[in-house]
């Protein structure tokens, strides 16, 4: 059998890498089916991300960029690749890691250890902000309160705000997240299935910026979020982490996503099995559809203003996080989920009285999550004990 024994093989290699032809292939690329050697795989993987960054002009030289880091595979690889590309192509970015501690025992505490190791391995500074500090509720607390159903609603809404708040503390211009091509394709399908045209329009854009129309908005609105992995297959991220021997935390969030999205995910996997380009094909379709929406429905997007309580961007008087918190704090957590009209009405009726809790204000959060001069007002009917730990209306008032 001819083999890769000699330095200069004159005989054809068995199973040579499709790209360099000089080394034996050791993997089959999920995105193309090509058989590649390790180095060629690293090369195409990294180059595609670089192309995505350059073609979409994601950064400017000197930008301070936060990498949303969960300790999972996507964000671990993201941190690694961002550092690598930053060095290789001289992006001249000032990178920092930003982690959210949702307070999920057995999941987040372990994964945060991974992030801390990443910090040391990649020499990138790290900031951890916790739900508990920001909202007064950890996810464990929330699950205790509302059960396992719908808790991902809280998780998602809270995380989004928490990232922005962390970014403000870090004084960064831009957050990159580990959303990959599979996530985006799935979201395209979801938005068609749910008939959510405004989201369909936005979900394929690589940079999002929920800026309010009026530029007087709070700093949050200036923070861009982008997805350098927009065209990167989840399987290849795993493969990359595996061959690079990257240190990541592989357990999925123990509070699983809803059934509907689950169906879409399974469907997407089936499609990918039948045609491996299906994921990029769906993203391509999504981008085209997004243009089709623009002409028509985008005007129906609500005009954005700021939450009267916490200052976060919101199309309503109260942002979704404050609304969810109000539900939680009143012992009626279900009200914030799904149709929010009911609780909004409730909120108006009760006229928010004096001191419902709200996310810690930016300034106090930046300070140190201070337990100092907070006025606690008991509004929680179910569990007074829990209330004791809640931060309350802030120095913004």
């Amino acid at each position, binding site marked *: 059998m001819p083999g890769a024994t000699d330095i200069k093989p004159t005989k054809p290699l068995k199973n040579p890498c499709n790209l360099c032809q000089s080394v034996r292939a050791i993997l089959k690329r999920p995105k*193309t089916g090509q058989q590649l050697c390790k180095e060629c795989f690293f090369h*195409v993987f990294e*180059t595609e991300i*670089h192309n995505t960054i350059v073609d979409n002009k994601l950064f400017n030289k000197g930008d301070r960029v936060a990498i949303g880091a969960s300790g999972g595979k996507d964000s671990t690889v993201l941190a690694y690749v961002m550092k690598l590309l930053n060095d290789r192509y001289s992006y001249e970015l000032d990178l920092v890691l930003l982690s959210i501690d949702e307070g999920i025992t057995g999941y987040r505490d372990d994964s945060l250890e991974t992030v801390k190791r990443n910090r040391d391995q990649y020499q990138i500074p790290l900031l951890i902000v916790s739900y508990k500090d920001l909202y007064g509720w950890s996810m464990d607390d929330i699950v205790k309160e509302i059960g396992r159903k719908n808790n991902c609603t809280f998780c998602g809404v809270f995380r989004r705000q928490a990232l922005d708040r962390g970014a403000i503390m870090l004084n960064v211009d831009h957050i990159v997240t580990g959303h990959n091509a599979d996530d985006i394709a799935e979201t395209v399908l979801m938005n068609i299935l749910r008939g959510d*045209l405004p989201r369909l329009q936005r979900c394929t854009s690589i940079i999002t910026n929920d800026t309010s129309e009026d530029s007087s908005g709070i700093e949050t609105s200036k923070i861009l979020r982008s997805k350098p992995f927009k065209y990167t297959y989840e399987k290849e991220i795993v493969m990359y982490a595996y061959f690079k021997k990257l240190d990541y935390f592989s357990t999925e969030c123990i509070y699983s996503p809803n059934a509907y999205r689950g169906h879409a995910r399974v469907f997407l996997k*089936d*499609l990918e099995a*039948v045609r*491996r380009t299906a994921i990029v094909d769906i993203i391509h379709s999504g981008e085209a559809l997004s243009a089709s*929406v623009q002409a028509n429905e985008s005007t129906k997007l609500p005009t954005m203003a700021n939450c009267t309580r916490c200052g976060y961007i919101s199309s309503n008087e109260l942002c979704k996080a404050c609304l969810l918190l109000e539900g939680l704090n009143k012992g009626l957590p279900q009200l914030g989920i799904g149709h929010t009209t009911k609780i909004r009405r409730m909120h108006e009726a009760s006229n928010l009285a004096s001191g419902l809790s709200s996310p810690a204000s930016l300034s106090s959060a930046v300070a140190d999550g201070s337990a100092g001069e907070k006025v606690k007002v008991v509004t929680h009917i179910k569990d007074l004990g829990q209330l004791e730990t809640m931060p309350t209306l802030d120095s913004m008032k």
Partner: protein
Amino acid sequence: MSCSVEEPTMTVAEKRAKDRAVHVGFCCKCKTAKSTVTVRYAEYCETALRNARAYRVITPENVMLAFSGGPSSRALIHLFDVFHSLPPEVATNKKQPKIYNDIHVCHIDESCLLEPVQDVTSSGSTMEQARSIAGGYGYSFHGVAIEDIYDPEWTDSRCFEAVATLITSLPKDQLTTSGQAPELLSRIIPTSVTAASEEEAPKLSRQEKISKMRALLGACTTLTAKETVLQHFRSSLLIQLAKRGECTILALGDSATRVAIQIIELTAIGRGYSLPHETSLLSSWIQDCKVIRPLKDCLVKELDTFCRLNGLMLIERHHAQLDWTMKTKAEVKSIRRLTDEFITGLDKEFPSTVATVCRTAAKLTPPEATYDQKCPLCHGPVQDGVQEWKRRITVTTAPGKLETTTTSNSTEAKTTEISDGCCSSDAGGCCSSSSSSQRPSCTTPQTTTVSSTSTPFSSLLCYGCLTNLRDLNLKSMASQEDDVSSLSFELPPYVVETIVHRMGFASLDEFEHRSDGGVSASGTAVDPQESLRAQIQEFLIASDDEDE
């Protein structure tokens, strides 16, 4: 309309059922109380009227009803009949002028694809059944067999005597080792007998046409690709049928269920750009022929019921079955079938799925594109720069070649200009030559030998077709140095007609004369060396694939 009378003593649930029933076109009374068939007719009429209103015109137009033989299109015919013989209270309504002038019915006979047997006797033919159903309503009938897509007659010019073969820009041995996606070029092969005896040009036999079509389907390595190509053939024939029947409207029997499945399927196969045209109630994309889907609000179940209640005869086996063409078990699932199962399943759990999906797509605006620049294969709109888009997000060059391709955009643009010699113009397809020109395989001599006979192909395609043709078996194609006789499948005349038009020629004659000159004639021509760009290699890998 007679059905819109509200029952005074309706419960909330009944009311809701009624609202829904009205929405999907069912008579409320049929659901809440058993009523007569005439009443049901009237409600259906209202659906038809409602959907027809959009295209009400001063001058009544001829409409062609596409009849496959299945329940939805069967219901379509019946409903058009009902609509034109309305109950008095509707018919006398002067506010509803006559919309359609003549009603025609057409049918595509797909019996040659029902089973593996290459049987050309018309035993399984569906044509006579379809004809008699249309005749029952007194509508004129037009039929064509699916294999006639290879007939020069079934083109816009009605006599386009050329087919084309596809060739790859790389020699075969390199294809197998690189796993790369070669640029696909077409080579146009006139089929008319060499100019002399035009009188008795030998027509293709049915058997020959069937073989050609089977050869093309056989070159597709996936069921998805086969189904998609076949669908393009159907659409092309339906439009031709409508035009021949002098109809300016083609009515399809697509139900809400069908449309919802299509919306997801089209998204999954990368056809999001043309999706609004392919699923809308009314599409004016095709020149001189509007396409309407009047049953877009009715669930397929309800159309089934409608057919059953009215005792409408269906054609049992009417749709091409492609399962027999599959060589491996892995092929039996296509994206269409998966989507079908997915939507049907989801709709059981979340009953509003179909309606929601349809509503989503109904709000989309079709893209602004030029009909002249249509995709040769599907005749859909073509977006600029799709090959470049693919190339940037799926890199297929080895590390050594990295520097030029990736340093920066501006450098790359320059490289492209310099690396010319091969680029006849700025044709969108050329941009990747910066990488391809560095490949040892792409040497200049090849260019000169082939440019006179090669015409572009990949660069003319829409994204969806580009993706779909990745499932073509490259081994069944000739490469540049091979001679044409080694080709194993051909593209039908309608495709070639568009290629020639897209290259700027008015006719095949003009094309032949100018390309006889030897120079690469057109501005849109792609450099024959174009290669290594998109990634068409799946099946190559698949052939030595056992290790996954």
